[in-house]
């Protein structure tokens, strides 16, 4: 097997392991019963990283035009930003 082939097989596995680790981190924060602005922002940051890893490396958008990656990133920024805004409104 060539190095390129080995690397191309290893890379998705690495992404998968990162996604698993981030999911366990999310679950652990929930199990710890933590809440508050900092925890909410941490959870949204983890979710943003996970969603972009899936979009860029599993959906293979990293090989496409910038426009498509921008749509997926913009989607999360708008939806995640509004979720954060609503959460902060609920703190008052």
């Amino acid at each position, binding site marked *: 097997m060539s190095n390129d082939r080995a690397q*191309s*097989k290893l890379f*998705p*596995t690495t*992404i*998968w392991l990162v*996604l*698993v680790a981030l*999911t*366990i981190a*999310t*679950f652990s*924060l*929930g*199990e710890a019963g933590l*809440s508050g602005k900092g*925890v*909410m922002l941490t*959870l*949204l940051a*983890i*979710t943003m990283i*996970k*969603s972009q890893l*899936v*979009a860029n*490396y*599993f*959906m*293979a*958008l990293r*090989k*496409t*035009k910038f426009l*498509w990656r921008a*749509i997926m990133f913009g*989607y*999360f920024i*708008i*939806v*995640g930003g*509004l*979720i954060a805004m*609503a*959460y902060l*409104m*609920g703190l008052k």
Partner: protein
Amino acid sequence: MNPNLVNIHLVNSNSTHHKEDLPGDFAIWIFIFAEMLAFGVLFVAYAFTRANNVELFNASQLTLSRTSGAINTLVLITSSYFVVQGVAAIKRGLNKQCAHWLTGAFLLGGVFVGIKIVEFHAKFAADITMSTNNFYMFYLSLTFFHFMHVLMGMIILACIIVKARRSAYSAQDYVGVETGASFWHMVDFLWIILFPLVYIIR
């Protein structure tokens, strides 16, 4: 112009065009973006409704099984990884290997469905319905809407598996596999947002 130069130009422009294209059939991406928009509106509606009912949402959220939600997240992430391997296999022209990876993804989809049915059953057994309160209205509608997408994704995967077993794809013709894969990844993408929003953030 030299015909060879024309050919080289065409080959280069085709490969460049292919590289920048979305994977799979473009029509599925119209569908994917439309579905993402629909889910996005529901996610934001959930968040703003919660802002006016924080105590109710936090108390109701405690009745959900975070463990089931987390296991289902791992199940979908792993099934997406299997789909990535299936696409990689068909790009090398390996139909049987592609079918094996996609069968793994399909079975994990079945695990997700099974866990969700247990969750739904527990809620209905406790007389919890969409009219119980605003939290359950969003929880049941969001997760059921997503559940239907998982079922649709499994049907698509099953069709691709059958074709791959018949060696209907090749290293040059795998658009169908990429189309189904893109839909399945969208199902994963949306659950990645849904899980922390509904099960964890409080």
